[in-house]
């Protein structure tokens, strides 16, 4: 018998907010353990939750990017369970009225295009982290991650293969990163996925026994886990190797196997009820349209625009649309300097060079695109040399430069058109290096380059190379 696979994914994404969901602690990743903790997020009695509006902004943004309906009145509920990483013994989540419902993500696989329906997106707080200390054989709790805002994106069981699951997750990641909802880093746990899977005879409309694998944290692990589970389910149905039961399983990526978790860890009545300390969040038209206006063009729309009317190569366009940050800087720069090709070059080559040196990713590019545009314009007008422009660019990474021309003037980076000053330098250089002059006169072109370099150094790079060259030749010819 032929079987088909039915997969639904629950994806957790940490939101890119500065602070936590119900307190003002920093939500940043990577701090010292328990540095981002206050009485609220460590479960001291008497603190009351105040909803971080940014979280709602990003929840709505995610919903709009994934074609969802936004619930204009959305509420928070308490989910009770005991675990040492959950200081309140309840997680605040959305059970009865999630912020987004009924969405859709379009994917493309080797079998062609397909739509995966989104059931709902809800906002919730993350739990802390348990750290086992082998030395003292104790388990310690780090509350930094407690109350970091998350959204959980629940798909309908529309996915029928590992390939589709990966296509869906990649598309989701692109859209959410593009809308700056999250940085979606699997390796930092800011994107995690639960896989619900069952199989059934092809064409059947009855769902098979479902197993759930929680907290998957890489695409390769998800691929392997899906393939493993499909094989295990098929074997069980065809050969009766085991009886399938609805359960939560743990995927061991090192061994390439899934294991049933103790039922005690999985069974639970979470006793959901509305949090009386959080008033329903009402999203009025003004709020809704404010968020709608912030939605970015989709990456493929931008790509089309870049290769089409803006005339970029496919390669350049691909590089730019790989990150929303690059696109933003690029578009702002072009609007000032007018040259898409130049702006793309500066970003893909020069900006990336600086980022690489700083061990930063493209998403972290936060220089002002308008300033970059001004700089490109100054170079194209021969007002600043390319070398000095790179120095100004490096300065832009350290702090915003609002008026680039003024900055260039202040630091002496403006190309000099004062030919008498250039002539003086050239005369000094010729006088100091009669050998090079003689070599040049004897036909050695390279000797001119040596003189040229020395003059340019004296002029701190601020000479129009063409002008300098002309003066140099003229002065040598006078001898």
């Amino acid at each position, binding site marked *: 018998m032929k079987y088909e696979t039915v997969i639904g994914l629950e994806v957790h994404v940490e939101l890119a907010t500065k602070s936590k969901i119900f307190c003002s602690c920093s939500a940043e990743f990577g701090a010292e353990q328990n540095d981002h903790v206050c009485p609220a997020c460590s479960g001291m009695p*008497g603190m*009351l939750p*105040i909803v971080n509006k940014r979280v709602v902004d990003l929840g709505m943004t995610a919903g709009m990017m994934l074609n969802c309906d936004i619930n204009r009145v959305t509420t928070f509920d308490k989910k*009770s369970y*005991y675990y040492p990483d959950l200081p*309140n013994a309840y997680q605040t989540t959305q059970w009865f009225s999630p912020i987004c419902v009924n969405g859709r993500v379009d994917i493309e696989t080797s079998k062609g295009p397909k739509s995966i329906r989104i059931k709902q997106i809800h906002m919730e707080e993350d739990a802390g982290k348990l750290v086992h200390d082998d030395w003292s054989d104790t388990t310690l709790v780090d509350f930094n991650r407690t109350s970091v805002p998350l959204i959980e994106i629940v798909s309908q069981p529309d996915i029928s293969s590992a390939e589709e699951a990966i296509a869906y997750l990649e598309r989701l990641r692109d859209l959410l990163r593009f809308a700056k909802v999250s940085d979606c880093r699997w390796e930092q746990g800011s994107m995690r996925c639960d896989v619900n899977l069952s199989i059934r005879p092809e064409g059947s409309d009855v769902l098979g026994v479902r197993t759930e694998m929680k907290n998957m944290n890489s695409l390769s692990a998800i691929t392997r886990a899906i393939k493993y589970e499909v094989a295990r389910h098929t074997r069980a149905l065809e050969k009766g190797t085991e009886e399938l039961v609805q359960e939560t399983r743990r995927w061991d990526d090192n061994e390439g196997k899934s294991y049933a978790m103790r039922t005690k860890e999985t069974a639970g009545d979470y*006793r959901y009820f509305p949090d009386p300390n959080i008033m329903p969040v009402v999203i009025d038209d003004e709020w809704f349209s404010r968020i709608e206006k912030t939605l970015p063009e989709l990456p493929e729309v931008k790509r089309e625009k870049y290769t089409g009317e803006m005339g970029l190569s496919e390669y350049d366009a691909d590089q730019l649309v790989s990150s929303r940050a690059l696109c933003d800087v690029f578009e702002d720069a072009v609007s000032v300097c007018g040259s898409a090709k130049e702006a793309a070059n500066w970003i893909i080559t020069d900006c990336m060079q600086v980022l690489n040196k700083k061990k930063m990713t493209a998403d972290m590019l936060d220089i002002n695109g308008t300033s970059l545009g001004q700089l490109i314009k100054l170079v194209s007008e021969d007002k600043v040399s390319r070398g000095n422009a790179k120095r100004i660019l490096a300065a832009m990474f350290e702090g915003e430069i609002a008026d680039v021309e003024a900055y260039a003037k202040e630091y002496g980076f403006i190309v000099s058109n004062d030919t008498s000053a250039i002539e003086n330098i050239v005369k000094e250089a010729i006088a100091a290096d009669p050998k090079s002059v003689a070599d040049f006169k004897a036909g050695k072109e390279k000797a001119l380059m040596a003189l040229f370099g020395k003059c340019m150094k004296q002029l701190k790079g601020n000479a129009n190379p063409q002008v300098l060259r002309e003066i140099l030749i003229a002065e040598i010819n006078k001898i």
Partner: protein
Amino acid sequence: MKVYITKSEATGKNIVVDDMILTTDMPTTAGSKMLDGYMSLFEAQAVTALKENGYTICGKANTGEFNLDLLGETSHFGPCEENGVLKGAAAQTVKMGDAMAAVTLEVNGSSARAAALAGLVMMKPTYGTVSRFGTIPAACSGETVCVTAADVDTVKEVLTALKGHDDKDGTSLPQEKCVLGQAMPAKKVAVAKSLLTADADTLAKVEAVKAKLIANGVEVVEIEAEQLLLAKSAWNILMSAELCNNVSKYDGVKYGYRTPNYTNIDELYTNSRTEAFGYLTKSTVLFGSETLSEANYFKVYDKAQRIRRVISEYLTAVFAEYDAILAPVCSKTEYTVEETAANKYMAYEESTYTAPSMITGIPVVVTGGVQLMGAPLSDAALLAMAETL
């Protein structure tokens, strides 16, 4: 007589707060072994507001465990009683002249009862007009910071200091709704017939207040008000559910009592809680847990929420016609330690009178041993009415 958990310096305008209100210079225990010696890192907004207005917090009054009980009889530190008769500890500090007023967190009517039995004036203001920031959470959807004093003027003075919008409390109302405004004199008061189930002495107090109102030219009308009887069960369901959730965080791990008897995390949780919570808290937690279970949520918890709405709507209709509802606060004029030991659910039974205002968040004034309930935000009118009595 265990009146104080901690007594501090008394200098001038002294106020006692109960042990549900967090202070940083004295422990806050909620009357529970679970929080014995607990020192908070921050203080309640109520405490901050009192200090800013020149009051001194001169002590922490003994409270029943999480203020669920009748008159403080479930305190881990022992009840506040005199010759076997229960006195609410916070009210007692006012009665003794230690404090000009007591500020307490009303959860299930114990503050109102204590004031009524001691012949003091007490006001539970409209829900949301005094910040709950820094109060130990028990039943957040109804619990309210309230004031008890010897006379209406003092209650009004202290309430004025306490009332105000607070950004740290998401249920706090806008500032303009929090302030005590001017009030029109009352014209019409209803007596809730369904609540006239108290003993003769208590009913006599209701009659006395009624007579005074009539003498003041107020029209007094008896109404059936059967809907108010629904409040007792509904409030106890909601209160239990919320309490169950709120005390879950007391697990012996981070602070408070930790059992010495454990070998693993499950035993640590279970034994700490078993050893530290009292009988009433445990039964409230069990009941609350049941009401929230998947099987019961819609049958029990959600139904209680709907009853809450029914009562609110009923009260809106009543207050469209009447300035206040007059009713007893409890069924008798005295309660003993012995009685509450024999009947551990006395607080539940007596909440018949206090649950209507707890579940709807309407303001209440207790004076002359009875209560006057008013429409939301009619706090000033209730105080003005109490002044004439």
